[in-house]
Structure formats: structure tokens, C-alpha cells
């Protein structure tokens, strides 16, 4: 019996048994998992969101309270923030959209499947500045939680250097005064850097508003630019000298939050979402929220999430009922308090911590004189663009400028081109 013919020695029965075993195994495998299509009761609505547990579980708490009040279950699905865009895109193409979602960006793929929330926005008195009409006159999304760009100072360093800072919005400093102050702090108190700014187009846009630019507003159907945008970028370029600002944050993605927390930086240009983190994780020095510099305008940039309800999910009315309940004064106040969110309607909220910091943000939103539309409105508007742009052109082109490959004017021109879908 030669080695080559051994195979036939395995008889048919054995082979059959083996094959049976294998297919049973495969069956068992495909049974474990799969079948995620929700066949729950008729009174369950899915709310897809991201980052809720990171923010104290405010949405989950609201959902639980709603269940108590009405008996309707809101199933909160917390998806990693990097995945929510893909998840909803897939859901839209598979015709499997949830009843509700809390999103930070609106996708042109599903923007036309959103319910009109105008009646709720009006009856619940949502701040009109935060609502963006769609081209056909509907209000497709209501902001659910607001954030604003703001400035944090390392108070201990400022006091050590004997440098003063403004605490009232109407007595705020100009960018020149601010840069002078942080330079003094750096030299006198031995800070490593004057300031850090997050690597984000959203932050640079706030700076542009302060310089009086409209920060690439849409005029007609084209995005435009102005002189002040160039001026802002030139100013920003000058700040990135590895003394006033470290180059590593914008060029190699170093974490500005971590640098500020190290106590080595005098000022941090970021936003209201940092308050909860700083409250918990800064113990070595004192920090404070101060008004943003102006040059010449007092301005900030708004951000945050939107509450949306999808059409034709079989739960259209129930979804709207939840949203209506959510924006009720008492319910919304509790939500904002739990999550540390700035309110989207005129409410006085007693936050469990850092009340003065939150008040500073609320005042700066009220005093916002920015020329262009804030990010909250832009996000909705951009979803209806014929040629949607991808990524964050403002950030990417600014990085190119900082690395020395183009000047401020070219940067602005490139940004406009990219926004217009070139």
C-alpha cells in the first residue's frame, strides 16, 4: 500500500460522519449571533447616540424618566463616536433607521428622511438662533445640547506672574492684550507655553469670528471668504512659534487637553465640554473660565448635538411625542444638569459644579456677535449642499499653512475651493 493511495482508506462512512459533524458545527456557529432585527413590543423606540455614558448618562436618565411617565420604552444605543456616522449611513441604505437619534453631524444620505420638528421647536421656545430651516422650509433637527468655544486660564500661573485677566464679557481683552498677558505669564511664572488651541477647524472658526470674519459663510449657493479670514490665519501662524503656542499640537496631534492639565500652559482655547473633565481631573493648580478675546468682535462658535426623528419608521408620532416631552422645561433642565450641557432654550440651570464657568459660557453665547452662521446652523445647512465636502478643510489647510507649505492667502483660497466641492 503506497503512501499516495492511503487517502482512499478513509471509508465513506467516516467521511460522511465527518462532513455531518462539520455542517452541524457551521450551523451552530451561524446560530450564535445574528438576528438582531428588533422584534420587541410595539412601544419601543430606539435612540441612537454616542458619548452619553461619558457625559453622565443624561439621555439614559431622560429615557428612564420617560418610561416612568408614559410607559414607552426608549432604548438608548450608545455607539462609539467614531462609528455613529457609518452606523446611520448603513441603517439608511438598509432601510433600518431608528425612530430617534442624537447626532453631531447630519448626513446628506438621510437628511430627507427627517421629520419636520417645527411645531415642537416653536411650542417649546427653542432659541431661534440655533434653528436652521431646510431649503423646503422645515426644521429637520433641534439642537439637544449646546457647547461653546471658550477660554480657560491657569489661574495659579497668572497669580504667580502677577498678571490680571478680565472676568466680565464687556471688559474683555483684545487678542493683542491677551497674547501680551500670556507672554508675560510665560516669562515671569516660568510656564512652558503661553497657550494651546485644539487641533480643530471649529476653534479656528471661533477665532475668525472674533477677528470680524464671516468664516466662509454661504452667500447664495457658494461659500465665500473675506480679508479678515486671511488676517486671522496670519495672526494664528505668528502665534505658532513654539513659545506662545507649541507647534506639536497642530502639526503632530499632541493633546492640548493633556498639556493644559500638566500645568505647563497659561491658557487653553477650547470649550465648555472640558468643564466636567477639569472639575474632576485638575487638582494641582487653579483654573478659571474667562471671556474670549475680541478683535474687534465678541464672538464664540457653537456646537453640540441634534435631536432628530426619522420618517416612516412606524413610530413617527411616538418619536415626536418623546421629543416634545424632552424639551419640556422641567425635563430639559434636569437633562442639562445631569450632562453638564448648556441649554438650547432660555433657562436658568443650577449645575452641580462649576456654576460660574457655565454662566460664563451662557453669557458669551448671549453676547455672541459673530457675523457668520454658527456651527450649529452650518451643520444642518451643509447636509443639503449639492456637493457635500468631506473632512474638515479649515483644519487641514491650516495645518498645511503651519507646516510652511503655503501662506495664509493661499490657505483661505484653498479652503473656499474645498468647501465648494472642488
Amino acid at each position, binding site marked *: 500500500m503506497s503512501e499516495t493511495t492511503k487517502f482512499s482508506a478513509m471509508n465513506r462512512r467516516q467521511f460522511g460522519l465527518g462532513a455531518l459533524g462539520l455542517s452541524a458545527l457551521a450551523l451552530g456557529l*451561524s446560530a450564535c449571533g445574528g438576528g438582531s432585527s428588533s422584534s420587541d413590543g410595539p412601544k419601543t423606540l430606539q435612540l441612537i447616540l454616542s458619548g452619553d455614558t461619558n457625559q453622565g448618562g443624561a439621555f439614559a436618565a431622560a429615557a428612564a424618566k420617560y418610561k416612568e411617565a408614559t410607559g414607552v420604552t426608549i432604548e438608548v444605543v450608545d455607539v462609539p463616536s467614531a462609528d455613529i456616522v457609518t452606523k446611520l449611513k448603513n441603517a439608511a441604505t438598509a432601510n433600518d433607521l431608528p425612530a430617534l437619534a442624537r447626532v453631531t453631524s447630519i448626513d446628506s444620505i438621510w437628511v430627507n428622511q427627517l421629520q419636520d420638528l417645527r411645531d415642537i421647536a416653536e411650542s417649546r421656545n427653542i432659541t431661534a438662533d440655533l434653528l436652521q430651516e431646510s431649503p423646503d422650509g422645515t426644521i429637520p433637527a433641534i439642537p439637544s445640547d449646546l457647547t461653546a468655544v471658550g477660554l480657560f486660564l491657569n489661574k495659579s500661573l497668572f497669580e504667580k506672574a502677577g498678571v490680571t485677566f478680565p472676568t466680565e464679557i464687556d471688559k474683555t481683552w483684545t487678542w493683542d492684550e491677551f497674547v501680551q498677558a500670556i507672554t508675560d505669564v510665560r516669562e515671569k511664572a516660568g510656564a512652558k507655553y503661553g497657550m494651546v488651541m485644539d487641533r480643530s477647524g471649529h476653534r479656528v472658526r471661533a477665532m475668525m469670528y472674533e477677528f470680524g470674519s464671516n468664516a466662509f459663510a454661504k452667500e447664495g449657493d457658494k461659500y465665500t471668504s473675506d480679508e479678515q479670514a486671511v488676517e486671522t490665519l496670519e495672526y494664528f501662524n505668528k502665534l505658532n512659534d513654539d513659545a506662545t503656542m507649541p507647534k506639536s499640537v497642530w502639526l503632530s496631534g499632541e493633546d492640548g487637553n493633556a498639556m493644559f492639565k500638566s500645568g505647563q500652559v497659561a491658557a487653553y482655547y477650547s470649550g465648555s465640554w472640558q468643564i466636567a473633565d477639569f472639575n474632576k481631573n485638575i487638582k494641582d493648580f487653579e483654573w478659571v473660565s474667562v471671556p474670549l478675546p475680541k478683535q474687534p468682535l465678541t464672538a464664540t462658535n457653537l456646537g453640540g448635538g441634534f435631536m432628530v426623528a426619522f420618517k416612516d419608521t412606524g413610530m413617527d408620532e411616538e418619536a415626536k411625542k418623546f421629543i416634545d416631552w424632552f424639551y419640556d422645561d422641567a425635563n430639559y433642565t434636569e437633562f442639562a444638569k445631569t450632562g453638564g450641557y448648556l441649554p438650547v432654550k432660555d433657562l436658568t440651570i443650577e449645575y452641580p459644579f462649576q456654576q460660574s464657568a457655565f454662566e460664563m459660557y451662557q453669557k458669551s453665547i448671549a453676547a455672541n456677535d459673530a457675523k457668520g452662521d454658527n456651527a450649529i446652523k452650518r451643520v444642518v445647512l451643509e447636509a443639503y449642499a449639492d456637493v457635500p465636502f468631506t473632512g474638515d478643510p479649515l483644519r487641514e489647510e491650516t495645518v498645511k499653512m503651519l507646516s510652511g507649505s503655503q501662506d495664509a492667502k493661499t490657505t483661505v483660497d484653498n479652503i473656499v475651493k474645498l468647501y465648494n466641492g472642488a
Partner: protein
Amino acid sequence: MASTTKVPLPVPGEPLKARGVATKTTKRSTRDGRGTRISAPLTIVMWVVVLIYALPLIWFLLSSFKPGSELFSYPLSILPREWTFQAFIDAWDRVDFARYFLNTAIVAISTTVLTVFFSACTGYALAKYDNRGTRIFFVCILATTMLPTEVILNPTFSVIRDLGLYNSLAGIIVPSVLTATGVFMFRQFFLTVPDDLLHSARIDGASELAIFFRIMLPLAKPILFTLAIFSFQWRWNDYIWPLIVLNDPKWYTLQVALRSIVGAENIDWPILLGASVISILPLVLVFAIFQKYVLNADVSAGLKD
């Protein structure tokens, strides 16, 4: 004379002996000297390498015991100034570990069992049933190692989706069952097992399956354990593929679930550190239990080639 001859005899003998001892000791001492001269720098190099490997891990472990306010404080210190377990408590509250451990365990264990079984079968067939068919098949299997996983990610995904395995644990188990590495390990091992064993078993009337299960598989125990441990480790740490295949948070494996701690605007470092440390514990446990097999098997696996 005799005395004179006797006397001088031990005299040359003694120095001889003494010389012998001396030469022996000098030999040993030179060997030792050369030994330490060579081994000292090697040992130092070893410790440097150990340090290079261990430092990030130690820093990571110690950081998980630091309160959030200390993580970025300047100057950095390796040892926490204030020890706290808060990060672990918060992480345990925040992440539904029970569910994710279960999902990951299902994936890791079933994949490991299947991988070991199929690799053993395939490796055995390739080693012992030598004909043109199996040789072509072996080349085909080897060819799969020539394409990086990232390259075949897309086609694999299409196959998984069309099989209806998208968003299910089976979708991560099935594609990872057959690894060329495992097949190769088993084939190389079974090649070293003498064919005489096969022949005598056949003469005794054993069927082919009995030979495989009762003679060959027990022989291959070291390889079996090595592959099992590696496979378990690969599946436990797998990130990209589960990330692509799983869509519903309730099927997430641990590594994918940890991602939700990374927020859009900032990262909750203390919780991320705590959760990461918890996530590696089962793997450490598996390694602690099967350690001797890993080390043993590695040595013999190295000799087999």
C-alpha cells in the same frame, strides 16, 4: 633506589597532579572569565531589552492606579503619589464588562477550538497523505500568507455579508478559523513523526480516523497548546475585523467596546486606563495557566524546523 625512585616519582606526579588541577582550574577560571566577559554584556543587553519592553507596560499599569488629576501633572512620576482604585470602580460601572467578556470569550474560545482542530486535520493530511493534490493544496494555503490581511479585508467582508453573517459573532469566528500559520505548524510537526507508527497502526487494524485521533493528535500536544494559546490571544486582541463586522453594541467584543470611552471631544483617561487593565486580565490568567506549554512548545517548535 626504590625510595629514591619512589620519592621522586610522586614529585613529578604531584606537580603533575597539581598542574593538572591547576590547569583544570585555570581552564575553568579562564572559561568562567571568558564566560562572564561574554555573558555580562549579554545579560546587560537582555535587561535593557526587558526594560524597553516592560517600561510602557509598567507605566500603563501604574497609571491606572493614579487619580485623574495626576495623569498629566508635571513633573511626571512613575509611581502614583496617591494610590486609588477609583478608575477600576468607575470603569466597571461604565462598561458592561459581563456582556463584552462573554462575547469576546465566545469568539476567542470557539475560534481557538475550531482553529486547532482544523489546523491539526489539515496539517496531518498535508504531512501524511502525500500526493499531488495535497501538495497543490499546501501551496495554496501558503499563498494565503502572502497577502496581508488588510488587502483581503474588502473581499472577505463581501463574502461575510452575503453569507448573512454581518453583525453577528459568527462573522468574526468563521473567517479566522483557518490560519496558514497553524496548518504549517502542524504539518511541520507531523512530518517529523515516523511513518512506521502509521504503518504499524494500520497493520493492527486501526482506521484512519482512529490513527489520527488516538495516536497522532496526542503526539502533537505541544503544538496543540501553542497554537491554542496564540489563537486565543489573537482573537482576544482582535480589533479591526470585529470593528468592521459588528454593528450592534450588544455584539461588541471587548476591544471594540473600549472604544466608546474615547469621546468625540475628549477622552476619559482614568476610565480608559482602568478598563484596559481589566480587559487584559483574562489573557494574563490564560497565560499564567498555560505558560509552561507556551515556553516548552516554543522551544520544541523551534527545533522541529
